[in-house]
Structure formats: C-alpha cells, structure tokens
C-alpha cells in the first residue's frame, strides 16, 4: 500500500463496509421470504423494488469517512451502503424498508426514499435528480458561511443525464462545496457503460465545466479515501467542486429479481473475484491488525444489523388513514405561526 491511511480510519471504513454487506445479505433474505416459490414483487415482508449495493461499499466508505453529520449526502436508488457510511439511523432506516410506522419516513418512503435530517442524508429514485439538491445544500452552506460540504452520489449510467450535467456547471460557476461521486459499476441495469457513452473515464465530464475530475480505477477503500480527502478538503476550504469517479463492482442483479441474462458470465465472475472488503481485510492484516480484531469488527457489525432488523420487524405497521398525513407540514389553509418540526418522525402518531 503506497497510500498512508491511519489504521483506525481503515478499521472504521472496514466496519462500514462489512456492516453494509451483511445488512444487504440479511435484507435479501427477508425480501425473498414470502416471494417463494414464485417471485412476486409485491409479496413478502419487503415489497417493491430492492437495489442492493454489494461490491460498491468502498466508494461509500472511502468518501463518507471524511464527512460530518452537518455535511449533506444525496444518494440514488441504490442507497444503503452510502446511508450506512453516512451514519443514518440503522434501526429506523430498516423499519422504513419494512414499511413500519417508526421508519425514517413513517413507512411512506421505502428503500429509495430514505431521509435522515439528523445526518443530512436523502435519496431519490430518479436518475441524477439528487445532484441539484446537493448543489443547493452546498449553496446554503456558502450563504451561511459554514464549512459544510455536500456530496451527490450517482451511478455511471447517470452521467449522461441533464440533471447531473447542469449541476456540474452550477456548482462550478458558483464555486460551491459539492463533490459528485460517480460509482462506476459498468452497468446501468442491462446497459454496459461503453454502449451509452464514449468516455471510459466519467470524470472527464468535469473538464467541460472547468472543474477538476478524478478517477479512482480500483475500488480500494484506501484509494477512494485518499482521493476523497483531497476533493472534500478542497470543497471545505472554499475552493469549489470536484467530480470523482470510483470504479466499483456490481456483485448482484440490478434489483432483486433481475435475471441478469444480459450479463456475460466472465463479467459476473470478475465482480465476485474483486472484493474490496477482502482486500481491505488484507490491508488491515498487513498493518498489523490481528485476525481476532478483524473478526470482532465483523461480529459487531452483524450484531448491529441483526438487532436493527429484529427491532424493525417488531415495529407496528402504519394504519391506512396515515396515508393522508404529511402531504404538507402547514395545514392546507392558512399559515401557522409555528416553526416546522424537524423532529424525528413518529412524534405525531
């Protein structure tokens, strides 16, 4: 390893990554329960689409390690690893995914619409549409003379979308503290990157807006950590945005139930082979971390995840009538004099 990262940082990233990986393994189990023998998307304890991020954890962990609660992160449809690395409340996030009343969104959002204002995390299911709000968070920080930054995560398939490209320009021309992180897993559902754009390196898009673009070719958490450190440092210091592309690997289908028949076997195998978690474990070992300590981290992660899932499954479902709440925070006619509540949800039910 030629990049020097403090061991405790490596350990933290490792913990985020194994937490995310194990979390999704458990979600997958729960998701598929009730979808047997025939897969029915609307059946079982977790209905709807489910996009898992196994193989992409290094990007989230390496970037979010540098972030504070006051920094904003927007994630796309594949949000769990990012949410976990950003420190989103795991129990309430899980309850949300199970559609429970005590979930982050009281069961209204589901897995593509996780909002945790305590750590300034949000996600959206529309490609690249998390970018403009991230620019807005960066703008707010600038206006308030705070040194917070905002990070927009997106997939490599999203780099051809207007919302992303317009956001690069707005962030650049206003020199806003925004980092765009492209997770390049080479696939947009069934479309490989080279079928949808001519650039191998998505960070090349930055040049057209006079913004620095950096690519991390290798989804080593430490390499991501390093590149992100510079980009986030630059943003925090008031020196404007960066576009960072990180190579990652999609170990699973696009969503649960994706037959992946479009995907060559070699490509699937290659994604299995390159596991950034195992690589980071090896790094830890070579930094002198004992196997027992590594195993301890894994166990802590598993316990936390199991606990969150147990807790979530115990939570009450929302009643049908709750569907009518929360369209507006102010009553439909007239303006209240109260401040809007940014408190945890659940207070009013």
């Amino acid at each position, binding site marked *: 390893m030629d990049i020097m990262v403090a061991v405790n940082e490596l350990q933290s990233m490792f913990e985020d990554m194994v937490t995310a990986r194990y979390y999704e393994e458990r979600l997958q189990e729960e998701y598929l329960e009730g979808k047997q023998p025939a897969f029915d998307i609307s059946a079982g304890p977790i209905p709807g*689409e489910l996009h898992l991020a196994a193989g992409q954890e290094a990007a989230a962990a390496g970037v979010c390690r540098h972030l504070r609660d006051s920094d904003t992160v927007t994630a796309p449809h594949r949000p769990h690893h990012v949410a976990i690395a950003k420190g989103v409340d795991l129990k309430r996030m899980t309850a949300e995914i199970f559609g429970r009343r005590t979930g982050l969104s009281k069961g209204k*959002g589901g897995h593509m619409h996780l909002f945790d204002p305590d750590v300034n995390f949000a996600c*959206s299911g529309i490609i690249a549409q998390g970018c403009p709000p991230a620019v807005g968070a960066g703008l707010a920080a600038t206006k308030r003379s705070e040194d917070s930054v905002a990070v927009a995560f997106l997939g490599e398939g999203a780099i051809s979308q207007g919302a992303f490209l317009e956001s690069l320009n707005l962030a650049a021309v206003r020199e806003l503290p925004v980092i765009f992180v492209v997770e390049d897993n080479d696939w947009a559902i*069934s*479309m490989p990157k080279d079928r949808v754009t001519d650039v191998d390196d998505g960070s090349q898009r930055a040049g057209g807006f006079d913004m620095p673009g950096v690519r991390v070719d290798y989804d080593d958490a430490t390499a991501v950590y390093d590149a992100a450190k510079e980009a986030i440092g630059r943003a925090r210091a008031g020196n404007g945005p960066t576009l960072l592309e990180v190579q990652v690997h999609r170990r699973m289908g696009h969503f649960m139930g994706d037959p992946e028949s*479009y995907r060559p076997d070699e490509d699937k195998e290659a994604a299995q082979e390159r596991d950034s978690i195992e690589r980071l474990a090896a790094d830890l070992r070579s930094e002198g971390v004992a196997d027992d300590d590594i195993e301890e981290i894994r166990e802590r992660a598993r316990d936390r995840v199991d606990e969150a899932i147990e807790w979530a499954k115990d939570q009450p479902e929302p009643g*049908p009538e709750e569907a*009518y709440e929360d369209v507006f925070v102010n009553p439909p006619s007239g303006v209240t004099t109260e401040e809007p509540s940014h408190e945890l949800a659940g207070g009013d039910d």
Partner: protein
Amino acid sequence: MAQKESQQAVERELTMSRAMVEAIGHEMRENEEVFYMGEDVADYGGIFDSTQGLLEEFGRDRIMDVPISETAYIGAAVGAAQQGMRPIAELMFVDFFGVCMDQIYNQMAKNTYMSGASVNVPMVLTAAVGGTYNDAAQHSQTLYGTFAHLPGMKVVVPSTAYDAKGLMHNAIRDDDPVVYMFHKRLMGIGWMPAPDGPKTPVPDEPYTIPFGSADVKREGEDVTVVTLGLHVHRALEAADDLAEDGIDAEVIDLRTLVPLDTETVLDSVEKTGRLVVVDEDYRSYGVTGEIIARVAEEGLADLEAVERVAVPDVPLPYARPMEDEVIPGTEDIEAAIRSARS
C-alpha cells in the same frame, strides 16, 4: 392469411405484453422505418417485457438501447419522426416524464400545430404506469390526467391483450404522436402476477382498434361506471359482486383519453342516471373531474348521482396498508356504486 389459421388464432390467449410486442413486431416487419428506442429495451427486453424477443429478430439498429437521457432520445424520436420515420420511444416509468416533458409536450405534441401541419410527428411514446406493488411515490403513478390535459397527443390506455394489440397497431400507423400507457400490473410479467382479465384471446393477424371508441365491458341498467386501465378489471369485479345484491352496473372502458368517447358515456348515463368514475390517477384536476364535467355539460338533466373514486391527492405511499388505502380497490368501487344508487 387463411381463414383457418385466423380461427385458430382467436382461441390463442396472450398476455398483454405478448400482444403489444406482437403488434410492434408486425409493424416493424412491414415497415423498415419503424424502430424502438429506450433504456434496457434490447438485451433486457424491456423492464416490463414491452420489447421481449424483438432484439433477436430485429437487431441492435432497430431495437436500440440508449443512454439514460430521456430528453435526448425522446427528442431524437421527434426529429426522426419529422423526417418521416416511425419511432417508438419508451419512457421506462411514466413517473420520469419530468425529465423530458418539454420534448413531449412542447415539441412532439405541438410541432404539427405550430407548423400548420407542414410537418407531422408520427411517433409512439410508450410508458409503463401504475402502482399496486409498493414502489412508492416516484414509481407508481399513472399520470393519465397530466398527459390528457395537454393538447396535441393522443392518449391510449389498453386494459386487455386484445386491446393492447389493436391499439398498438393503430398507434404506430397513426400519423400523429400517440402516448401509449401500459399498466405494469396488466402486462403478465413473470414477477408481477396479473389479474385474470387482461389475458384474452388475440387473433394472429393484425387489426386496429380506432381511437376514441370506448368499450362497454359490461352492460347494466342501474349505474354507469367509467374507468380505464387496471381499474377496468377492478370495476368488473365490483359489478359482479354487486350483481349478487341485484345491483346492475354498466362498466365502460374508455381505452383512449384523447380522443375521448363522450358519446358512449352519455348514452349510458341517459340510461342509468348514475355515474361513478374510477381512476388510478390523482383525484383533483384530472380524469374523474373531466368525465363528470362532460356529463354535467351535456347530460345534466339525466344525472341523479355522481361519485368519484381516485387517488386522494397524496403522493403514493410505500407501505402496503397505506398504498392499499389510496389506490382504489374493488370495495371502494362497490361502495361508490352503492352510494350512487342510494
């Protein structure tokens, strides 16, 4: 085509997606200028099976995967259509219209008019619509009213395999832009079980169903139920249930919103005097209001009761109890029919 084959064909039942794909395939075979663009329409065959098997027959030049840039490729369809080609462009979920609506409503739909018909835009925009599988607020909408409100596009919503094929033939042959909205729940996708209704006998040979002709799916004397898409099937179920209680509902499937077959609705209300409109779009400023207003304008004297059943002006919630609450169910329709009769 020989008579015998066609007889046979009528026995054949297809899912809605197979019927839709059959029409597309036929038109592509007949006319080299027809092609299909969209995300994941090639190797994947369309996330909702809208292009299943077409890549194998027509190849990548005519079944085109495109970058995730709906404005660019839907606009490219507009440009190609203005050159006389007949593109079909797919918006994977209708919910994504917000990223490309200018091309749809300000170019595709208006160029004919703005040019005094010196150009026309013979394209089809396909889009998957609808909820019932807990995909939440950004992936479960129908937006029927949003598209039908803006002039210059024909708006088609099939509810059965038979209609899906006939309407698709018509859509591709039509010289104007057509928005073809297929309900995911009706397609017969492996992982999203369809109700029984949409799978119907479908003739092998091509046939067209003219736009602007509603289909009286069930005749009845007591109450007129006007609906479309998935809710045709829910309304029919409700009508069957109520028949046991001696309530005889007529169920009308609009099939196209633009043009709208007001006639059939008025005739029915003249008979029944009672109107229930059922829609999977948001309640206000949409389809239900329009149907009621048309009847009030032209058949007020006949009208003894109106009810509407639609999504109650809230975004689609994720969790099952809440989604079930806001998307009209069979019981909601039954209740509305009963209430219209009381």
